[in-house]
């Protein structure tokens, strides 16, 4: 099996979870990876201070789509204020593969937009 393109990564890429749009939604954010132009947007519905539902949309490589898909699953149900505490190591841990410096932004774009929507923080996760 390929060390990067593992079966579950390709599965998330081909069948992304929580992909699409949510209307109406409470929070939204949109951003892109300036290196490759990949774009990602997110819609979030908040209930009782928690991420009640979330959909992401856009286009990107297998790593960025799988990372967004996996991150989305983890975020649903989480108290909104806890999203701010998620960082780059957390995403890479969730992905379970080694990410080279050239693919780092691919892996982090999903969390970046989801964190942007919940906290207004537009910076790249560290």
């Amino acid at each position, binding site marked *: 099996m*390929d060390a*990067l*393109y593992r079966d579950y990564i*390709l599965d998330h890429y*081909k069948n992304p979870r929580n992909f699409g749009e949510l209307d109406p939604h409470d929070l939204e954010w949109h951003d892109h990876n300036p*290196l*490759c*132009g*990949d*774009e990602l947007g997110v819609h979030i519905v908040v209930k009782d201070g928690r991420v009640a539902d979330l959909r992401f949309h856009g*286009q*990107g*490589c*297998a*790593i960025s*789509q799988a990372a967004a898909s996996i991150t989305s699953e983890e975020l649903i149900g989480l108290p909104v204020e806890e999203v701010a505490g998620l960082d780059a190591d957390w995403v890479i841990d969730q992905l379970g593969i080694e990410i080279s410096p050239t*693919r780092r932004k*691919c892996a982090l774009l999903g969390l970046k937009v989801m964190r942007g929507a919940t906290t207004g923080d537009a910076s790249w996760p560290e």
Partner: protein
Amino acid sequence: MGAVAESTLSRLRADFPILDREINGHSLVYLDSAASSQKPRQVIEAMDSFYAHSYGTVHRGVYELGREATELFEGARERIAAFVNWDSDLSIFTRNATEAINLVAYAWGRGNLGPGDEVLITEMEHHSNIVPWQLACEDTGAKLRYLSVPESGELSLDELDAVLAEGRVRLVAVGHVSNVLGTINPVEEIARRARAAGALTLVDGAQSVPQMPVDLRAIDADFYAWTGHKALGPTVGMLHGRRELLKEMRPFLGGGHMISRVEREHSTWNELPWKFEAGTNAIAEAIGLGAAVDYLAAAGMDAVRAHERELTAYALERLPEVAGITLYGPRDVDRRGGVVPFTIEGMHPHDIAELCDREAVCVRAGHHCAQPLMRVLGVGATARASFHVYNTRDDVDRLVHALNGAREVFGL
């Protein structure tokens, strides 16, 4: 004829030390020359020898080293200018093509554009021939317009005429060869029509000078910009311009070397081309580019062009064997340079490039600094293979093999 070109040029491979490298256990297949080309030993040695034997700064030293450096530097300028058939005192060293275009956008644009004027570019421009004009238009109140890129990948001269006929275009800025589609634009005809309509023309030759014969007197544009690192040379750029314009224009950057006399409140300018070369030049790089054009001239630019054409034709023939592939750009290899953009259904270009790299096949993935064109093509990104003298048909075979392998990893 193509086969002849390949066999004549393939002996040049031995001149490129980097091709001895192995990556991931495979010999290197470098298919990203449109981004930046590899360097022959002759260029590396010219720079080494300058640093080891003749280094000094130019135009100042009274001593022997200063004289030698100046001779090597100005000698390089003369050969570079001759290579594209232009006057050497109208040939300015810049950092790269981007700075050459910015030089015109500042030194000519700020002084000559105003509200009611238009700058006409095309949808296939590289960001470095878009953003400087956006900024110039913002500063001057001029308007930026685009010629469209249809499905064929070729500009319409009728559309150009229609826009020029409105009478507001002051400058047409167009790429000679598209870095994404490979389209060879009819810049000679564009410059002629622009001039007839009272507009200037700037040609971005970043992709043309490296791979085909370019005769600036025949093209007869007002400004021509290009970049050395894609032409087997180091990172240094060139701007060639028309004498009257360069004389009239204000300097771009102020500083040492570009002045004639500095008073407390104002200064007068050095002669051309030095008026536009503020500060200490990238001397070794200029000398290296001199060696690169010598190398290309010895190979023969007709032979280089024939080689690019032959490899492009071969790639356009073989790549369709890869299931799910879409190719972009003109079909006719007489009208396109050595660059082949493609996408594969079900696989993002980033992943294509990553998996090709496992087999030491270097292809580019992304928007290629041409985001407006990507939107026209309706894709976020493409993969791209591009060629230079050191590439062979075998490299194309290795690419096809790597692409088929990549599809397997993705279970396609």
